[in-house]
């Protein structure tokens, strides 16, 4: 072999070695130096995570009765559906679910690269009947599966619907708001939209589980790698008493039905709130008309467009004229300010002119009550007596006492949204103030109040001036029953009035429910009731019937329930509200 050739073979060999070194170096770079990076990428390639929906927390009444729970909802889905079987399966499902074949095929096509996840065919949960039909034909329907997902279940249908609220699919804005708060939601999640379901969302919502599956390049599921079980949401115990709530709803409904039966076609709306005067717990909250949270999403359009607005929680968001129930404020102001004593007598002549240029004012039906003390005046709801007190007390002092009792301010309820503050007819600097307005204000005209405020007013009268923050949720516990949170009563304001003042008011309110009082029909209840009726004219022309109101508490000696009832357009005096309250007290205490 020639020498030059030998040299060239050496050069050639060196080049071959160089190739080996280049390849090995690059291999080392990828497999050793960049291993972590590429390993992570390979894992992301093959792993997909599917959420497993966590059931929401359950909601119980104060005695442990289940109000809101979960039950399995059935959804028809396809998973690993074979191309060959698809036409038959789609045709069958189309008939069974009453959907267009094209729509079903489109759903499958849209998710062809996500076939590791079940593709939901039915948009809403299907009946047990449909499930049974699919199970019977299991062999003919390869790739069709029944998925279960927890569904909200309201045990008593519309019971306490406004307090409990409802759940719906999360909207875009809600999603963004939650993201801002650092709370993770998917676009397909449900969220509390109203009531306690909304305000306590953070506790009620569970933590979704994760199903980690291995998929191939085509997104087909190969195997399940691991599974993290969902953690159910926490359970709420409410302050509501389901029994009282039911009685209150039935009573209000029956009275309204009766009114309508008697030809009062303006009647049809109303509200009841019952508080525990010793704690501020909301024992019952009724808003009429109501709705059913279970079918809320299906009926949404109808409910939204209903002119009676069943979605409005009138108990906190409805503001009504106070009417004669305001008279306790006038009494308290006059007694506290020393303008009258419990024995002071004022004479009622039926009609009277209090100020020059102010028209004569009188009592209901121009009744003449004669000489009255404050207790009798409350019992008979004498306007002349309270006109006189108002004139003597003056508007500014009168309004200050009204504010003491929480008028024109929200009560402090945090468990529901949309609480209104109501308003007071008050004199303002620099604005025209007719002298006669103080008389109007003294008998409760011109002020507005929510049923919850009215119930709080009632509670403060019952407990001697303690304003507790009203609340709906007593406590939170986790799935295993472990207590997470206990809500303690909270005093927002405490009035320091003289005992004589309370004594006079209590006697007056008790006399209301005795023979000769405006709610004498309550005299033979199993429990001693104290209360006050009211009616508020809503139109000067008389075209609309007055709202009918009642505030009161029972038992009168040791109050347990402070009640407020409003029946819209229920008529003058206690025509409508008193029977509601009477029935509530009668049935609630009859059973004990």
């Amino acid at each position, binding site marked *: *072999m*020639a020498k*030059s*050739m*030998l040299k*060239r*073979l050496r*050069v*050639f*060999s060196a*080049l*071959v*070695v160089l*190739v*080996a070194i*280049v*390849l*090995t170096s*690059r*291999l*080392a770079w*990828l*497999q*050793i130096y*960049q*291993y972590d*990076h*590429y*390993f992570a*990428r*390979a*894992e992301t*390639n*093959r792993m997909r995570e599917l959420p497993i929906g966590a059931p929401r927390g359950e909601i119980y009444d104060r005695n442990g009765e289940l109000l809101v729970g979960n039950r399995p909802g059935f959804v028809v889905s396809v998973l690993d559906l074979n191309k060959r079987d698809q036409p038959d399966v789609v045709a069958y499902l189309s008939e069974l679910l009453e959907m267009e074949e094209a729509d079903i095929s489109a759903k499958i096509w849209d998710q062809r690269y996500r076939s590791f996840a079940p593709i939901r065919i039915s948009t809403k949960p299907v009946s047990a009947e449909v499930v049974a039909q699919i199970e019977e034909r299991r062999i003919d329907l390869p790739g069709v599966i029944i998925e279960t997902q927890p569904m909200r279940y309201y045990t008593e249908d519309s019971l306490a619907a406004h307090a409990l609220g409802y759940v719906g699919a999360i909207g875009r804005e809600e999603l963004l708001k939650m993201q801002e708060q650092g709370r993770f939601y998917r676009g397909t999640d449900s969220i509390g939209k109203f009531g306690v379901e909304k305000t306590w969302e953070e506790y009620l919502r569970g933590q979704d589980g994760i199903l980690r599956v*291995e*998929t*191939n*390049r*085509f997104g087909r599921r*190969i195997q399940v790698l691991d599974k993290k079980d969902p953690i159910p949401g926490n359970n709420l115990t409410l302050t509501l008493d389901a029994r009282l709530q039911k009685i209150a709803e039935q009573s209000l409904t029956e009275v309204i039905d009766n009114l309508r039966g008697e030809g009062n076609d303006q009647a049809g709306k109303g509200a009841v709130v019952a508080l525990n005067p010793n704690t501020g717990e909301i024992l019952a909250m009724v808003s009429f008309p109501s709705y059913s949270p279970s079918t809320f999403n299906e009926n949404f359009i109808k409910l939204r467009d209903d002119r009676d607005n069943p979605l409005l929680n009138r108990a906190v968001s409805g503001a009504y004229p106070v009417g004669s129930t305001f008279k306790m404020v006038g009494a308290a102001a006059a007694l506290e300010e020393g303008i009258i004593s419990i024995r002071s007598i004022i004479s009622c002549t039926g009609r009277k002119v209090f100020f020059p240029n102010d028209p004569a004012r009188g009592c209901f039906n121009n009744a003449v009550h004669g000489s009255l003390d404050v207790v009798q005046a409350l019992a008979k709801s004498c306007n002349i007596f309270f006109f006189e007190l108002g004139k003597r007390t003056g508007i500014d002092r009168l309004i200050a006492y009204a504010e003491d009792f929480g008028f024109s301010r929200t009560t402090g309820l945090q468990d529901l949204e949309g609480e209104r503050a109501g308003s007071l007819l008050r004199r303002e600097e620099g604005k025209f103030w007719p002298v006669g307005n103080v008389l109007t204000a003294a008998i409760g005209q011109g002020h507005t109040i929510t049923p919850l405020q009215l119930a709080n007013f009632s509670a403060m009268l019952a407990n001697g001036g303690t304003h507790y923050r009203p609340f709906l949720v007593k406590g939170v516990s986790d799935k295993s029953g472990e207590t997470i949170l206990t809500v303690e009563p909270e005093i927002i304001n405490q009035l320091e009035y003289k005992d004589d003042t309370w004594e006079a008011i209590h006697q007056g309110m008790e006399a209301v429910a005795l023979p000769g009082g405006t709610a004498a029909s309550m005299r033979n209840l199993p429990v001693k009731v104290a209360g006050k009726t009211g009616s508020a004219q809503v139109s000067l022309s008389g075209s609309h019937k007055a709202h009918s109101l009642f505030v009161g508490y029972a038992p009168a000696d040791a109050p347990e329930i402070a009640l407020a009832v409003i029946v819209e357009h229920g008529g003058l005096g206690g025509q409508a509200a008193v029977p509601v309250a009477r029935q509530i007290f009668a049935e609630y205490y009859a059973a004990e």
Partner: protein
Amino acid sequence: MFDRRLFRNLDYLLLIAVLAIMAVSLVIITSATLANPFGDPMFYVKRQAIRFLIGFIVLIVVISIDYTQFYRFSHYLYGLNLVLLVAVLFVGKQTGGAQRWIDLRVFELQPSEFAKIIIIISLARHLASREGNFDSLFSVVPSFIYVFVPIGLIFLQPDLGTSLVFIVILFGMLFLAGVRMRHLLTYAIGGAAIGLPLLWFKLKTYQKMRLMVFLNPDTDPLGHGYQLMQSMIAIGSGGLRGKGIFEGTQNQLEFLLEQHTDFIFSVLAEEAGFIGGVVLILLFMLLIFRVIRTAYIAKDTFGALICIGVATMLTFQILVNIGMTIGIMPVTGLPLPLMSYGGSSLLMNMIAIGLVLNIGMRRHNIMF
């Protein structure tokens, strides 16, 4: 037919390297084709094993003919080669935008594969007969013309990768034949300066995309960049020891494409790791160095040139194929010698190795 004494000179080390690479190939092909539409997980590996057997029969035939016989017939081979390459342009089967195959019913013939070995033989004769006459720059022009006729035909298919293999083989053999270094460099640089811009206009869109993607893999991660990206993920995630044979997720879950043919190295590196990859590269080195050694001990220049042609071809194909899977070479359709699933390339490689063994066996002028 055989003289027993010839077997004393048979290069058993070279044969062992070939057998070892084939064993690795069968394992990796099995793993790469477990999931296939034929229902039999061993479908591909059985066919490849049969091809290996046929390959050995062909190899025995090749070593049984004294290689000096090929010297005599090389002109006829060259002619046959041109006929086949022209034929493929007219009767060839179209796959993936290129016309590379002739359907012979029994098997599909890829003339450009056999063209490699024919060019090596005929170029070896061409250069051997001109030995010592390569002093001037223009002395190699006839050799260029000689090789560029078949290259032109292959380029028309079009098969850019194989065309490149020919050019590299040509340079490797010219280098060993004694053409001056600076002359070779002049031709290489000049050829590149004129050829590359022309080439760019001739390239099909998919070929351009492949080159673009090679220069910047992120241009098209779901399209043309996908294969390359998935290959690098497979290899990188294999780590030092690999994920285990049959355990490579990139392979088994089909994120890799063409994983039993062009991207078989990605499967090996994913499942057997850096260690597996280096072992294979070392086996290839053993093979190539036994070929170079045969060039060194060959009794004539013709034999030495054939060996260098084969060594160049193997080295270049290994560089381009493995380089492609690890992102340092553009994606071309070149298979990995002895490893990739397929018949034509394997048969050609077995003939080439047979020739080398043949040259090694007949290194002495034995008197019969």
